[in-house]
């Protein structure tokens, strides 16, 4: 019994050490630019850009195969930041920016089908079958995936309402 415990522990520790050293030895350096871009993306993997998740989009942007404007939830702010990081000039005027948005459930139309709950990448929608759903403001990233899924068009995107907690003084217009 003791011999079994000791020998297995030693075996595990030895193999773990060896693998640890090997992982240092064979470490693969990722593309540092790509890692930086991944950190800037929204990270909700909503898939509206057409790439498999935010990592895929960041890889394509880093390679130059996708424009920095490809992320709808990121909006103008993200596109500007990405272009700034990549050092390229982009035309932001084509990008429609409605400001930060939230999904809102129209309670009189919601039939409680739960489909939006399944597509939400951030689990921001609460509700149960045949119960009116609701969107948690703190969790919603405004990606709009639920809007396409809703069979009764009960989900709409609205600008983030200004509440006492959220309101900030508008920036002065640049002269």
């Amino acid at each position: 019994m003791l011999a079994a415990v000791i020998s297995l522990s030693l075996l595990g520790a030895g193999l773990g050490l060896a693998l640890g050293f090997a992982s240092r030895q064979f470490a693969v350096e990722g593309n540092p630019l790509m890692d930086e871009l991944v950190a800037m993306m929204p990270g909700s993997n909503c898939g509206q850009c057409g790439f498999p998740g935010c990592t895929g989009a960041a890889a394509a942007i880093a390679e130059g195969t996708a424009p920095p404007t490809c992320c709808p939830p990121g909006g103008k702010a993200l596109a500007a930041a990405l272009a700034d990081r990549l050092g390229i000039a982009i035309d932001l005027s084509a990008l429609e920016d409605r400001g930060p948005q939230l999904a809102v459930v129209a309670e009189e139309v919601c039939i409680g089908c739960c489909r939006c709950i399944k597509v939400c990448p951030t689990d921001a929608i609460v509700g149960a079958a045949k119960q009116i759903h609701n969107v948690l403001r703190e969790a919603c990233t405004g990606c709009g995936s639920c809007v396409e899924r809703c069979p009764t068009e009960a989900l709409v995107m609205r600008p983030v309402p200004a509440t006492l907690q959220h309101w900030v003084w508008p920036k002065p217009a640049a002269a």
Partner: protein
Amino acid sequence: MTAPAEFLLLLLSTALVNNVVLVKFLGLCPVMGVSRSMDAALGMGLATTFVITLAAGASWMLEHWLLLPLDLGYLRILTFILVIAATVQFTEMVIRRLSPGLYQSLGIYLPLITTNCAVLGVALLNVQQGFGLLKSLLYGFGSALGFTLVMLVFAGLRERIALARVPEAFAGAPVAFIAISLLSLAFMGFAGLIA
């Protein structure tokens, strides 16, 4: 019989006559999964060869230096799996470093070598047959060669099948299963090769 001839015979008999995939039916998952293209099949075969050979040697050492002296035979499967998993992890790191393209094309099947029953099967068969270290290594290497051979042959078959006009009901997996069963029948023909 002289030693080299015996070793050659062992290699041949494990690779062809007692082929792990087509005669013992071990490790079918990667054979069906990664045999769409010759390149991926060759990569998978070589990675598995590396793992099986190393695991055969390591399991012999474990068996004779740890399990038998301490009378821990009941831990055999556990320790073998541990060593195999570590070897696969190591192989994955090396492949990721040396050949990112191969790493991409093998995908999930690379870590799944751990659960490839051919690897554990060869290690356990070695113990069962009471081989020495050198013979264990040879047995492992021979089995792995047989595995790689089948992978390559089957990938070649599937590449040709992909171009053929297969009836709709048989397209995809069914025709692949029929092809591999015919290949298995063909390998049965080696049965009388070594008396």
